[in-house]
């Protein structure tokens, strides 16, 4: 099935798939950000692929990555009748966190996207109501980015070497 997806996507959008890896039971397709919406739409409407269910989506911040791939958006799709799950990732720089919304494909994406906006500051273009969802509206930062550590920065007794991140 993985080969079929790769082949189909490569046929339709030759520049979209920029990478592929297998992590445990999940195939991960790394998609160019400019094509992510087309790819997701194709995966959903293609009758053979039929990835009709958006299981979850989340943002990831890789501060150590090169600048152009510092932030990542992850989508997890599920084809229930055939029971195939895939994961899609798209990378982007910190300066351009604009991602096309998928609320028109899956209604469930509404709150998931609001959550990722809240946590990371991704701007979902075309989202009907892109406001904070879990944190308060007055908050002026995006707490799940790695530059906001959990521990009080002034404390020096909690050394990273001894107590982890």
């Amino acid at each position: 099935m993985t080969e079929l997806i790769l082949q189909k996507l490569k046929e339709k959008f030759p520049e979209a798939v920029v990478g592929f890896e297998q992590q445990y039971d999940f195939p991960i397709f790394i998609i160019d950000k400019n094509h992510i919406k087309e790819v997701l739409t194709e995966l959903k409407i293609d009758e053979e692929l039929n990835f009709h269910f958006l299981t979850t989506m989340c943002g990831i911040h890789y501060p150590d990555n090169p600048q152009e791939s510092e932030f990542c958006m992850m989508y997890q799709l599920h084809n229930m009748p055939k029971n195939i799950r895939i994961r899609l990732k798209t990378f982007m720089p910190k300066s351009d966190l604009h991602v096309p919304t998928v609320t028109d494909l899956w209604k469930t994406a509404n709150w998931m996207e609001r959550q990722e906006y809240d946590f990371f500051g991704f701007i979902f273009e075309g989202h009907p109501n892109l406001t904070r969802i879990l944190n308060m509206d007055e908050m002026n930062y995006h707490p799940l980015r790695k530059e906001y550590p959990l521990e009080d920065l002034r404390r020096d007794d909690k050394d990273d070497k001894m107590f982890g991140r």
Partner: protein
Amino acid sequence: MKQVEDIEEKHYTTLNLGPTHPATHGIFQNVLTMDGETIVDSVQTVGYIHRAFEKLGERRPYNQINVLTDRLNYCSAPINNMGWFMTVEKLIGAEIPKRAQYLRVIIMELSRIADHIICDTVIGVDSGALSGFLHLYQSREKIYDIFESICGARLTTNIGRIGGLERDFSESTWGHLNLFLKEFPVKLKEFQKLLDRNRIFMDRIIGVGSISAEDALSYGFTGPNLRAAGVDYDVRVMNPYSSYEDFEFDIPVGTAGDTFDRYTVRIEEMWQSLRIIEQAIAKLPDGAFHADLPYFYLPPKVDVYSKMEALIYHFKVIMGETELPVGEVYHAVEGGNGELGYYIISDGGRTPFRFHIRRPGFIYYQAYPHMIKGSMLSDAIITMSSMNVIAGELDA
């Protein structure tokens, strides 16, 4: 004449339902736009008990995250715990002994029953039938007695460890469990006699808060709520974990996706859970109740005091000095009200690099305005209780 003009210029009433309303069972705010008794629109506010679990998880060693998972869906905390352990076990590639898997299945199915008891009895309460609630809640107390005898806690259980369980079932646990299995079917039958074909109850909930299968899938429904809408999706069958493939059980499916279907699907799931527990007890193999994972599983206290090696492992587990493989893993379990998935990215450090939870309650609660549009206020209350939205899971 004046009255006719007034009607054309329609005025709606804004009604705040919540955040602390006795009928919402938790902190949920819904700002309703009402046309008389009918709901025209509603806007939800969530996040009242947001505790930033995803951020907290990034600083905690893997064995300390399970106390966070307790507080997701606190009505069925053991399922959340087991889901987390299985995710980590998948990451480190651990083999769990059959006995531990079966014992986990027993615990998970018990907590599924406890979860469904809450939902089904509360549907009764919200339609005015308090006696069923008081009656069946005794059985939930019995389940909590079982949990207490396994792990010492009742609500936020923190049951089990990475690699298995912290201890085998004791004599007392088996006593409680056998008593429960003898008593509960009788109680549940009584409860069903009270409500199932009760004309008042049926008139009250049939056709209330219905959702089509297509909409339910689009809104990301999983679990009993999706099955009530007619889609036979169950993680226990689709992606069996913890030896669920060894057991024979049915998946109840509804047709209309209304409150009555959600109620009946949950009732039938309780019977199926009982079936699974009975099979698990009958087939329960001998063997260890935990895997041999010295880097994750605390050694017995006696050995810590007397053996060098055990002391080192004890120190390493407590301090989180464990080496983990680099990779990312997603594992889903069938939680009390849907697919509960954990997604962790490990960079080899002592804590996850990214910790994300697919919380079924958060995902399907956004369909609530769609489900109550055009219905009465009292129907909105009963729809919410039948969806079984738990504040802890919603806000994480």
